[in-house]
């Protein structure tokens, strides 16, 4: 894109700057639109599984429901509790929202279609997602209220626990792909299974990791069955109890942007990203971005499906699953994967 702006007669610095801003807008604006529609889709799927109709009043099939909700929230008054820590109270939703957008910089949408093609892309995502916990902690602490504080404690412990096993799971992928760059990881999946299928997920050695990563990503985004941070029967609404108006909306958007990010990571790391699922020439006629979106939407459907059907874990069960089940399994798999690669690729 820099070359295009340079051809319009700009100097390199200006062309680079304009191209980067355009790239950011090209990712962020469709993302916000996607988040609005995905909230609608989430409610519709959830309703359909509970044999309800879901949102069906605003616009055709209720399609404009999220926008109506957004407008309503926008017009509300922002209430700040008198005993809240004002500065941190206002910064917390901004952190959540910003961090949820930041990680998208390294996601490859097609071959070469990536905003920041850095060679530590996966580490960047881990770093950004470890920042995400601060929005929750700060909102819970600064509200100066019991339930948000409980929720913040739960959320931070939960995210830290599952980030550990996610880190070990990602090592398996990195070993196979031989790169931390997300685009290289996608390319490494080309014809991975006997030259027939384009995905690490079809590899019998990596498939358990794909399942673990999917469950961990449910926990990382605090979706059902791990939504203890928003357990309404115990904590009112969790860390966002004291929030209203746009500050609440930022949490809401950030949360769903994170869900989409996790779906995208599932697609990119284990299921071929922008590659078609089969290594068969006619399938490459479909643009890569459509394959990626189809995979993201599929994983989002599974997220909703889980939300509609699985009951919530108890907190000690959640911790046990993270530390006593996922962590040992992912550690063993690091040994298995590296041993397999030592035997086959590097001997």
């Amino acid at each position: 894109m820099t070359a295009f702006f340079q051809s319009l007669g700009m100097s390199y610095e200006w062309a680079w700057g304009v191209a980067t801003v355009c790239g950011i807008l090209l990712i962020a604006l469709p993302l916000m639109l996607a988040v609005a529609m995905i909230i609608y889709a989430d409610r519709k799927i959830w309703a359909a599984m509970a044999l309800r109709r879901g949102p069906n009043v605003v616009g055709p099939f209720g399609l404009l429901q999220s926008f109506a909700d957004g407008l309503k929230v926008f017009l509300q008054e922002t209430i700040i509790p008198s005993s809240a820590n004002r500065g941190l109270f206002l910064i917390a939703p901004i952190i959540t929202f910003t961090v949820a957008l930041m990680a998208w910089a390294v996601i490859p949408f097609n071959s070469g279609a990536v905003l920041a093609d850095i060679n530590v892309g996966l580490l960047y995502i881990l770093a950004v997602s470890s920042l995400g916990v601060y929005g929750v902690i700060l909102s819970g602490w600064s509200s100066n209220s019991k339930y948000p504080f409980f929720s913040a404690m739960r959320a931070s412990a939960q995210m830290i626990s599952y980030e550990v096993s996610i880190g070990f799971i990602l090592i398996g992928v990195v070993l196979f792909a031989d790169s931390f760059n997300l685009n290289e990881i996608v390319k490494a999946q080309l014809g991975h299974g006997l030259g027939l299928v384009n995905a690490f997920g079809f590899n019998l050695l990596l498939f358990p990791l794909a399942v673990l990563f999917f469950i961990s990503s449910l926990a990382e985004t605090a979706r059902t069955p791990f939504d203890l941070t928003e357990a309404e029967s115990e904590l009112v609404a969790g860390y966002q109890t004291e929030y209203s108006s746009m500050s609440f909306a930022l949490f809401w958007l950030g949360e769903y942007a994170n869900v989409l990010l996790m779906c995208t990571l599932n697609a990119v790391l284990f299921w071929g990203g922008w590659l078609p699922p089969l290594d068969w020439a006619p399938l490459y006629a479909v643009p890569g971005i459509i394959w990626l979106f189809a995979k993201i939407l599929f994983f989002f459907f599974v997220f909703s499906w889980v939300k509609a059907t699985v009951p919530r874990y108890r907190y000690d069960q959640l911790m046990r699953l993270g530390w006593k089940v996922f962590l040992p399994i992912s550690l063993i798999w690091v040994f298995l994967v590296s041993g397999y690669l030592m035997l086959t690729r590097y001997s």
Partner: protein
Amino acid sequence: MIQLIAFYLFAFLVIASAAMVVFARNPVHSVMWLILAFFNAAGLMLLAGAEFIAMLLVIVYVGAVAVLFLFVVMMLDIDFAELRAGFVRYLPLGALVAIILAAELVFALGAWSAGGIDLAARAAPAVADKSNIQQIGELLYTRYIFLFEAAGIVLLVAMIGAIALTHRQRGGTRSQKIAAQNRRRPDEATRLVDPGVGQGMEL
């Protein structure tokens, strides 16, 4: 040009937020400034071309250490008036530390202006065509393998020590037996009874 702007921005923010860590009255605010300082230090690392170290700085310090620190700060019952009351008592110690640091700074500046020791020849040369991670990995797992493993063993010992110090079996607690919980079936967990009036229930 943009590198220069970025460098001064990051450098200014590191120093400013480091100062705010000390000057902020509320410990939680201090932690927040500390995280900002770490974050900007990672930015400086990026400018130096060490993207792997930069990401590790964010993951390890910002992600893990600062979260643990925040836990401690938020769980402690801190009385701000009491914290400030000790100012005069700790003044001599604080002044001593400040003098030592200042002396070290002057000493380091003097040594630096006198010309550095030629350390570059002793370190392994950087290879330009390899990525950061590969370079570090090759050094760590070949040249410094024993130091690296020693560091790992030290960490392992520290971990076992921490567990051994804090893990104790308290009497009278009931722990979860997950296997027994999973084996439970409705017909053995529930009972259908039909008590007569006024007889009560045996549980």
